[in-house]
């Protein structure tokens, strides 16, 4: 059986003022029907760009290479009509900032029903009824009346619930959630995740959850990809990665998960430095400058994503659990 989503050697480059920068450098992964896959990395790791490339939401100026297949179909080859028919009905997306991802000048009802009418061919009253039902499903009381409200009268958490309702409206086979809880209050984050958990579970919806927070992703997902500087540096089942990380970067991400509840830092305190920006040199490990295990070879060769002693692939010459940490 073919996977629901196949991403094969995806590359995304942007050209700005004559200089070309690679945001995604050869990313491959699969998502099976009903599966939950997490993509974890700092901002700038290419995780969001990967998601946007899959949804074909990147600006025309972006150069996209490789292949994206959905149920065997070549997504990158879709024409505008096919694309519009696919988005919203087979695949949907939840964005990071619920404050700006709803149109401020349109009623919630309009924003909810337009997809239902388009993809499911519902009549106006039927779509309204369905929209109200969806709002109730995501835990919004007094749904009929709230359909007439504009986004500004909803709180951030409520808006994200509306966004989730919009994404789930036509029961897509796959929902991509790009940092869906990052912009929310900590107390609301868990509720929104629970809601996504419940909804995707009920309909067997496959989910790609993108986050900088390994803790959030590991509790939600079956499988995890760790991305760094436009590449997957480690991949495998969530439990294994948490228990026995192979890549030094994964290790650092794990160390930076705050043990106490509190504001989650965006820049990870446990990893000094920042990810490479713009052009990434191809002849060295992109993590070398920040890596505690760095050796000379790391600065002259680029490690490929290969199986390690942990049984999972990682892009590192000296993965953990295989070579004892060198004392420098």
């Amino acid at each position, binding site marked *: 059986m073919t996977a629901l989503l196949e991403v094969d050697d995806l590359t995304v480059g942007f050209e700005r003022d004559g200089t070309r920068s690679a945001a995604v450098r050869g990313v491959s992964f699969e998502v099976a029907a009903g599966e939950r896959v997490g993509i974890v990395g700092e901002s700038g790791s290419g995780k969001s760009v990967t998601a946007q490339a899959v*949804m074909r*939401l990147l600006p025309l100026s972006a150069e996209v290479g490789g292949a994206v297949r959905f149920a065997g179909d070549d997504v990158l080859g879709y024409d*505008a*009509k096919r*694309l*519009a*028919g*696919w*988005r*919203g*009905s087979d695949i*949907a*997306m939840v*964005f990071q*900032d619920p404050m*700006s*991802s*709803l*149109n*401020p*000048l*349109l009623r919630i009802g*309009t*924003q909810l029903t*337009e*997809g239902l009418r*388009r*993809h499911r061919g519902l009549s106006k009253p039927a779509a309204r009824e369905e929209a109200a039902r969806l709002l109730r499903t995501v835990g919004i009381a007094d749904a009929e009346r709230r359909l007439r409200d*504009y986004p*500004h009268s909803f709180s951030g958490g409520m808006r994200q619930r509306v*966004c989730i309702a*919009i*994404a789930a409206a036509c029961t897509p086979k796959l929902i991509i959630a790009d940092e869906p809880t990052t912009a929310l209050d900590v107390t609301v984050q868990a509720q929104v995740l629970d809601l996504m958990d419940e909804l995707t579970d009920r309909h067997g919806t496959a989910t790609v959850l993108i986050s900088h927070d390994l803790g959030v992703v590991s509790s939600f997902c079956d499988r995890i990809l760790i991305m760094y500087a436009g590449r997957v540096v480690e991949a495998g089942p969530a439990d294994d990665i948490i228990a026995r990380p192979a890549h030094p970067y994964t290790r650092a991400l794990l160390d930076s998960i705050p043990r106490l509840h509190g504001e989650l830092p965006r820049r990870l305190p446990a990893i000094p430095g920042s990810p490479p920006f713009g052009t990434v040199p191809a002849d060295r490990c992109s993590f070398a400058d920040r890596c505690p295990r760095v050796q000379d070879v790391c600065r002259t060769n680029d490690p490929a994503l290969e199986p390690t002693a942990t049984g999972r692939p990682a892009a590192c010459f000296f993965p953990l659990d295989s070579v004892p940490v060198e004392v420098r």
Partner: protein
Amino acid sequence: MSRFLLRRLPQALIVLFGVVTLAFLMTHVVPGDPARLIAGPNASAATVASIHHELGLDRSLGYQYWTYLRQAVQGDLGTSYALQGTSVASAIGHALPVSAAVAVLGVLWEVLLGVPIGIIAAYRPRGLLDRATTFGSLIGLSAPPFWLGLLLLYALAYKSSVFPLSGYSNPYINYLILPSFTLGLGGAAWYARLTRTNMLEALRSPYVQTARAKGMPESVILLRHCLRNVLSPLLTMLGMDLGYFLGGVVVIESVFGLPGVGKLTFDAIGTLDIPMITGAVLFAALFIVVMNLLVDLAYAAIDPRVRR
């Protein structure tokens, strides 16, 4: 919505009162004696004094002001000095439809030319049309309207008589097209640029991403999702433009020989026709205030966040 109106109306009244006072003071404080202008250069001092008395100019400024206010509230703006026996209100009333037609048509030109061009330019940034718009708006914005008007008159009325050269008679629209176009062209360029900027911003906004991810075709995204967000900031400008146009109309009406409020004011200034000048200024202020009120209402109708 009515609460919104209730808050705005007193503001509008205060503005109007301020404008009347200012206009009254300005026309009465400036040097120059209207009585002498009416009487002619050879009139005796006694004649001038009797005209003074007739016009009530020998009373104190305070009394004159109070009388003016009292009558203005009742819609009586006095009698013209220059056009004997004509009431200011009726003179303005006759000239108003002409000016209003020019101003409204001018705004129409702005919107009908500017907005579509701006949208197309936004969809093809740095394309030919985009560059042409930038260039055109530079000309449109920097060319003085009377120069543009004369140029158009020369080409389309004098050289080839597509349009009449001057005046105002039936069919009126023929006499209005060139003046309103002249008035609106600069603004159209400006609107095109503003629409382009707003449109580019809207197209990049997260809510458009959401709409795309929902599977909305580009036409729906443009018409349902973007246009409102693009047009609502334009509305404010529209109201200001109508006011501004009423000012610009003075020049345009003179160039095209249209018997509107602008020409009336222009002539009144030439003859120191104080009631006419004050009346025209008051009327212009009223026009701007009403326009802004209407725009605010329209704004509130489009953008729910303003209503509170």
